[in-house]
C-alpha cells in the first residue's frame, strides 16, 4: 500500500501512543490524591533508567565485569598469591599450572599476580583520565553552549582540531613532551578526550536552553551561574554519564598502547600494556605471557562498553 502514508501512519500512531501513554498516566500521573495515591511510587528519570538497566542482560554482564574489576583492583594485595614484582629465578617462563595459575614470565614473576595488580593502573587511568576529560569538557561545553557567539566558535573550532588529530598519535606526542609516567598518562588522555564531552554537553545545553523552565528561571532573575548549575546541569547529565562510561574503555586501551610503546607505565610496575610488550619476543615459547594480559584488556573494555551501551538504552529508551 502507499508506503509513506502507512509508514507515517505507523510513526504517527507511535507518537500518539507516547502522548496517550503520558496522558493516561503510564508515566505516573496522579489524579485527585485520594484513591490513586497508593499506586504511584516516587519514580524519577534515574530510577526508571535503573529499572530498565536491570532488565538488560548484557548491560548487567558489563556492570558485573566493571564491579569485579574494581573489587580486584581494590583488594589486589589480598587476591594476588605472589608479589607482582618479586622475581623467582627458578620459576622463569613456567607454563600455567596449579602453582602459577597464569604461568610466569621471563624474570620469574607470577603473571596471575601481575594481571591482578595491572588492573589498578587500568582502572586509575580509566577513571582519572576520563574524569579530567569530563571536567574540561563540561566547562568548555557549558561556555560554548550557553553563551554561544564568539566563545562558541572559538571552543568548537579548537574541538574540531582535537577531533581531527588521531587519538593515539596525539597521546604519543604529548607523552613524548611530558615524558613517561602514570601521572602524565592521566594528563595526556584527559586532555585528548575533552572535545567529545564538550560537544555532547553543548548540544544538550542548546536543546535545554530554550525550554520554558529556563525562561521561567530567567524571568525570576536567576543568574547565569544558577541557571547552568541548577537547571541545565542536572538535565544534561545523562548523556555525559553514558559517554564517560564508554570512554573509560577507550582510555584503558590508549593507556595499554602507550605502555606497550614504552611511553607509559615504567617497569617494574605491572601494567597490562607493558606486559604485552614484554611478551612480544616470546610468543612462540611462552604464549601465556601475552594471552592473559590481552584477555584482561579485552574483558575490561568490553565490560565498560556493554555497561555504557546499556546505560544509553536505559536513559533513552526511544533510541532502540
Amino acid at each position, binding site marked *: 500500500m502507499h508506503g509513506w502514508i502507512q509508514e507515517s501512519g505507523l510513526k504517527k500512531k507511535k507518537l500518539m501512543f507516547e502522548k496517550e501513554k503520558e496522558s493516561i*498516566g*503510564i508515566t*505516573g500521573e496522579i489524579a485527585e490524591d485520594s484513591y490513586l495515591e497508593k499506586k504511584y511510587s516516587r519514580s524519577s528519570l534515574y530510577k526508571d533508567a535503573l529499572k530498565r538497566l536491570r532488565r538488560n542482560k548484557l548491560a548487567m554482564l558489563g556492570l558485573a565485569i566493571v564491579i569485579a574489576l574494581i573489587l580486584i583492583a581494590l583488594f589486589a594485595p589480598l587476591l594476588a598469591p605472589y608479589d607482582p614484582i618479586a622475581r623467582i629465578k627458578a620459576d622463569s617462563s613456567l607454563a600455567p599450572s596449579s602453582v602459577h595459575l597464569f604461568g610466569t614470565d621471563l624474570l620469574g614473576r607470577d603473571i596471575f599476580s601481575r594481571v591482578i595488580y595491572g588492573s589498578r593502573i587500568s582502572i586509575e587511568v580509566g577513571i582519572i583520565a576520563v574524569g579530567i576529560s569530563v571536567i574540561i569538557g563540561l566547562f568548555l561545553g557549558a561556555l560554548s553552549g550557553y553563551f554561544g557567539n564568539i566563545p562558541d566558535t572559538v571552543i568548537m573550532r579548537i574541538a574540531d582540531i582535537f577531533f581531527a588529530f588521531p587519538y593515539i598519535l596525539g597521546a604519543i606526542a604529548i607523552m613524548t613532551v611530558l615524558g613517561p609516567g602514570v601521572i602524565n598518562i592521566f594528563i595526556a588522555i584527559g586532555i585528548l578526550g575533552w572535545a567529545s564531552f564538550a560537544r555532547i554537553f553543548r548540544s544538550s545545553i542548546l536543546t535545554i536552553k530554550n525550554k520554558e523552565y529556563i525562561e521561567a528561571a530567567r524571568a525570576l532573575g536567576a543568574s547565569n551561574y544558577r541557571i547552568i548549575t541548577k537547571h541545565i546541569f542536572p538535565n544534561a547529565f545523562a548523556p555525559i554519564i553514558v559517554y564517560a562510561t564508554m570512554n573509560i574503555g577507550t582510555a584503558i586501551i590508549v593507556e595499554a598502547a602507550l605502555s606497550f610503546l614504552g611511553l607509559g607505565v615504567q617497569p617494574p610496575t605491572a601494567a597490562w600494556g607493558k606486559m604485552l610488550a614484554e611478551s612480544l619476543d616470546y610468543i612462540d615459547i611462552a604464549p601465556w605471557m601475552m594471552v592473559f594480559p590481552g584477555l584482561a584488556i579485552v574483558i575490561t573494555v568490553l565490560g565498560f562498553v556493554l555497561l555504557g551501551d546499556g546505560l544509553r538504552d536505559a536513559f533513552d529508551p526511544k533510541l532502540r
Partner: protein
Amino acid sequence: MDSSGNNKILEVNNLKTYFYTDGGIVKAVDGVSFDLKVMETLGIVGETGSGKSVTALSILRLIPQPPGKIVEGEIIFDGKNILDMDKKELQDFRGNKISMIFQDPMTSLNPVFTIGNQLMEAILAHKKITKKECREESYRLLELVGIPDIKRRFESYPHEFSGGMRQRVMIAMAIANSPSILIADEPTTALDVTIQAQILELMDELKEKTKSSIIIITHDLGVVAKYADRVMVMYAGRPVEFSQVDNIFYNPLHPYTIGLMKSIARLDHGKNEKLKPIEGTPPSLIDLPEGCVFRVRCEYAEDECKSQYPPLSEIEPGHFVSCFRAKEFLSGSLVRNK
C-alpha cells in the same frame, strides 16, 4: 455500499483495546459500541486519554502490537469483521475503503519526496492506471482540495507548504481512492483558527461530493456542534453518551456531558458568565475505580454507582447513555445543578 438493506456502513461492537505496559494493563478502549450511517458525520469527543484516538486506530487495525492489543469486540464494515482480516485484505482495505487524516500535517508527509510523488503513490496503491492517467487524477484531486497553482505545486516539497496546505494534501491523499469512510483524528488542532475553518468546510463539502461518511475526532465542542450529525462522548475509554447532536447539546443525560457543557468558555457568552469546571482529573486507565468510572468526579453519584458500571442503554429513542440516573434527568425528577 449499502449491502444489508439498512444504511449502516460501520458497526463497532464492544471494542476493547488494551496496552500491556510495565506499569500494568492500560484499558485505553474498554467496551466501545457505535454505528456509522452512510453520509453521516459522527463526532467523537473526549479529553486526552479518553480513548478516542485509540478507537480510530483500532478501526484501521493500526494499534502498535506489542504493547497494544485488540482483546475483544468486532468491527463490521460492509458485512465483514475487520478484526478477522488477514494482512492482504487489510492492505487492500486501508486507504481504499477507510482512510484516515492525522492531527499533525507537519509530520504526516515525507519531507524527501515531492507532493505529487506522494499523492501518486497513494493513488497507485489501489488503482491500476498508467502514470499519465495517475497524474491527471492527482491534478483533479489537488484542485478538489483547493490547492492553487497545481502544476507547480505538484512538483513542490512538503516544506514549501504551509500547515493548512499540507493538511489539504493529506485530505487529497485520503480521498484518492474514494473511501466510504474518512476518519479525521483532530484534523485541525494543529492549525490556526482561520485555517481550521477552511479545512473543516472543505471536508464537509467533500463529504457531499463523494457521498462518504466522516468520523471526526475532536475535543472542540464547537466543531462538533457545527459539523456532526451524531456525537459519541467518551470518558476513560468508554462511551458515556451517544446521540443526535441536538440531544447532546440541549438535553445531555450523562453527568460528564452535562459538566463538559458548563465548563467551556463560549464565544456567545459574556465575561461574567462563570465557568463551572468538572472537579478533579480523569482516573488512571491502569487503575480504574470500581463501578462507574466517572463517579469520583460526579456530583450526582449514588451508592449504586460504586458497585457496577452502568451499561450504555437507550434512554429515549436514539439516545444512549451510560448512567444509572439518566432516566431521572430525562423525566426531570433530577434537576441538573446550576
